[in-house]
């Protein structure tokens, strides 16, 4: 293995060295029907970032309604009325239906179309094969099919906004019977689109996860033993299993709900339903709780699908920027595995208040507490890793470092929810919203940003602008906290989530004991901070696009002086990734090894 510095080949040389069986693919072959994991990764990345932005716009409109219930949304309000129809946004005012459909689609889009695809689809695809020294994924065509399913799913979801009756409006959790009875007029309603979209997205995830796991098992290069894999790869591996085994039950549930919606069956509808004062004409005999079990059987593992790859990225960026090995790498790996395993048996902590007996409740809160321990271990290991480091502050590491306390807050606030007795008070309040946004918004999103700043030079050959990056970081961390911290206060005041009037009914003038109108004021603050949060992304968007063309050129293939194999390829990596078969001689984070010439000893360097 050569040292990375000597790799500054242009891609032209690579092509000739490699050109035997290949013919030059055309535009479609190169960008749409590509089977190259790197192209697919970029496809995933671009689409999911666009969905992220879209999900943000949805919530921005909702936050306006929350802060100023009943007043027309400036600028976009009339547009919404025009596009989505009078019954949704009369006079540019967001009605209850529109609010609910935006809320449901915000959750769905953020989770299934933005964050998971960007973490698993984009970073996972681009980086995993590089880090294990593989030429590509094990099944490149399956990989392409996975992206196409995802894209189609996204299109279906997006199209659902324009069906009569609007997009799904039963929350991202789509609880039955609500999901089946909201629209009794249109059988083919937004919910049906949602279900079809979900089936496509699930198929995409299944194809992806089979591929990832097989790749990691089979295509590790020589010397890349399990315990020499970068933590990022471990995270992807565990995530793959979560998707592989937790998603199918939701697929089954989705098909059942689809039958309920289209063919009038009663999987989730009990007997004796009276809707709008009329007996619902169905056979009944189904169970609404069955849906919840099947949904949360996925739903809980899904949240670790969101967080594990994020921790993986953070681990890579941090170890590189503190110039020392991760502390307790092994215990982190074992913790990730335990999290993966336990996450399959904690799901009903989302259902404490559906009416749960003592035995089941005890079981689930015990497992919930158990699963918090490996999370504590991982976070502690990352914190302790900082000790003795030589910490560099750049855009990537700032985001990665800020991830730690943000995830800490989100994780810690999971604990009072995990105890079912305290959940009695906190359930479905803004405390829950605060809890999980701290993990998914400042948490995973910061990891995504860290990853983008970190791998940008490998993908494009150019660095992103540091000044804009730091501006982006400062604005993001400030406004993120200003958006989500007040939610804990609102939660403590008893404010419920999914309220299209921002809680006016409960906290308005003549209300019962204990209602504090102050929480309504917080809605205003959150709105403006959310606007600020959006503005804080502008430097990033400018940075992102301009750096592709005018960013500072990376001086070598390994500009961050990193140790993992992804930096041992040419920039950008050619088809087939490596010029020679890589061989690995040591662990993933051998920084500042005593006695070594440089402060980093790449995995592929023999000495």
């Amino acid at each position, binding site marked *: 293995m050569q040292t990375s510095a000597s790799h500054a080949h242009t891609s032209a040389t690579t092509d000739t060295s490699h050109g035997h069986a290949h013919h030059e693919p055309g535009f479609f072959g190169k960008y749409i029907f590509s089977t190259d994991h790197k192209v697919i990764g970029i496809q995933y990345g671009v689409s999911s970032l666009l969905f992220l932005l879209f999900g943000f716009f949805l919530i921005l409109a909702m936050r306006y309604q929350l802060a100023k219930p009943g007043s027309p949304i400036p600028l976009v309000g009339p547009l919404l009325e025009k596009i989505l129809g009078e019954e949704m946004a009369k006079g540019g005012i967001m009605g209850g239906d529109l609010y609910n459909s935006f809320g449901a689609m915000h959750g769905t889009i953020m989770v299934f179309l933005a964050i998971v695809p960007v973490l698993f689809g984009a970073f996972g695809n681009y980086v995993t094969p590089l880090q294990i020294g593989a030429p590509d994924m094990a*099944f490149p065509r399956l990989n392409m099919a996975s992206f196409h399913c995802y894209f189609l799913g996204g299109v279906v979801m997006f199209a659902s906004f324009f069906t009569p009756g609007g997009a799904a409006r039963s929350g991202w959790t789509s609880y039955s019977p609500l999901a089946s009875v909201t629209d009794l007029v249109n059988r083919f309603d937004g919910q049906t689109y949602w279900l079809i979209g979900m089936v496509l997205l699930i198929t995409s995830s299944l194809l992806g996860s089979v591929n990832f796991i097989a790749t990691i098992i089979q295509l590790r290069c020589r010397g890349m033993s399990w315990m020499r894999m970068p933590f990022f790869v471990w995270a992807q591996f565990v995530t793959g299993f979560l998707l592989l085994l937790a998603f*199918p039950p939701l697929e089954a549930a989705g098909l*059942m709900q689809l039958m309920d919606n289209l063919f009038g069956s009663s*999987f989730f509808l009990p007997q004796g339903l009276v809707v709008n004062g009329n007996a619902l004409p169905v056979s009944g005999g*189904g169970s609404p709780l069955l849906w919840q079990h099947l949904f949360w059987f996925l739903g809980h593992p899904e949240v670790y699908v969101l967080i594990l790859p994020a921790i993986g990225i953070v681990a890579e960026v941090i170890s590189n920027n503190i110039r020392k090995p991760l502390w307790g790498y092994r215990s982190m790996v074992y913790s990730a595995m335990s999290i993966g395993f336990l996450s399959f048996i904690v799901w009903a902590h989302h259902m404490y208040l559906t009416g749960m007996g003592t035995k089941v409740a005890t079981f689930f809160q015990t497992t919930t507490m158990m699963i918090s321990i490996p999370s504590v271990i991982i976070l502690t290991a990352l914190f302790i890793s900082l000790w003795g480091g030589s910490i560099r502050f750049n855009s990537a590491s700032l985001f990665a470092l800020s991830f730690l306390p943000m995830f800490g807050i989100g994780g810690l606030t999971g604990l009072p929810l995990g105890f079912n007795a305290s959940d009695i008070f906190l359930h479905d309040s803004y405390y829950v919203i605060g809890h999980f946004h701290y993990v998914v918004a400042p948490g995973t999103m910061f990891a995504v940003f860290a990853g983008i700043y970190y791998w940008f030079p490998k993908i494009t050959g150019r660095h992103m602008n540091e000044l804009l990056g730091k501006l982006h970081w400062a604005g993001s961390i400030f406004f993120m906290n200003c958006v989500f911290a007040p939610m804990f206060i609102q939660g403590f005041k008893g404010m419920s989530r999914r309220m299209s009037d921002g809680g006016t009914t409960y906290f308005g003038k003549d209300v019962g004991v204990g209602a504090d109108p102050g929480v309504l004021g917080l809605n205003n603050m959150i709105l403006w901070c959310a606007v600020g949060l959006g503005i804080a992304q502008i430097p990033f968007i400018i940075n992102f696009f301009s750096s592709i063309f005018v960013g500072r050129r990376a001086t070598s293939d390994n500009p961050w002086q990193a140790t993992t194999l992804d930096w041992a390829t040419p920039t950008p990596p050619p088809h087939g990734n490596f010029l020679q078969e890589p061989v690995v001689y040591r662990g993933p984070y051998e920084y500042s090894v005593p006695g070594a010439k440089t402060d980093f000893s790449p995995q592929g360097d023999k000495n």
Partner: protein
Amino acid sequence: MEIPYTYKARPDTGLYNAKVGIWLFLASEIMLFGALFSAYILLRVSAPAGFWPETALAWPRGLLNIPIGTFNTAVLITSSVTVVLAWASLKMNNFAKFRVYMVITVACALAFLGIKSFEYNDKFSHYVVRLKDGKALTGHIEVNGKHPGFWNFNDQWSVAKLAEQKIDKIKVELDPLRDSHGHVKHGAHHESREISVSDIVSLGSYTPATHPFFAVYFLITALHGLHVLGGALVLGYFAFPGAKMWKSNPEQFINRIEVGGLFWHFVDLVWIFLFPVVYLL
């Protein structure tokens, strides 16, 4: 670099890529069908008593055609053995035999689907008619001298349609009575009865809307049927156009047959549980 282990086994795992892939895929299929079976059990144990009119049971039993189901089981088992024999033939370097076995396999798959669609159709022409006095009748119905195949698929519970067409009587050819095990009662015989539409609360054929049993039955068997169809397409492909690979890379071709066979056996496995659960229990 080329992708390694596409057909040779990796030394430390002892497996080639596609085999890892198919087993992972089957693991997820276990979860998929597992969830459906779980749903079946949950719905069944929590079904309200007296919910199905024919017996005192909450859950209909013995409504599916057992001889046909048994025959279909045998068909699927046959295809399962022929697919493994096809693989073995290749191992023994006998391509002609391979093709014969593969053709039998695909033929079995198509036969299975054909029989299944016949069964589906039969169910769609069976009706349950709920009466105002709380009783319910099941059987074929005759409206204006015609046996309707499908009645309103979605909107089961509307008698309005009959009234709309000014029909005031329908004939029901009653199914023989069953005991609480779903067995046909001794000496039971067909009987036919005129029912006036004004006595009917609701009527509908045996579709997913009739009862959760039919909902589960149609969903699982349809999903299983899709797997059969998919498997038949892939195996058919291997038998003819895909067989070119036998010349260019026999080892990889054998692997493909093995992987295809694994999927096929899994489809058979699902049926092995499905058959007793929906037909017999």
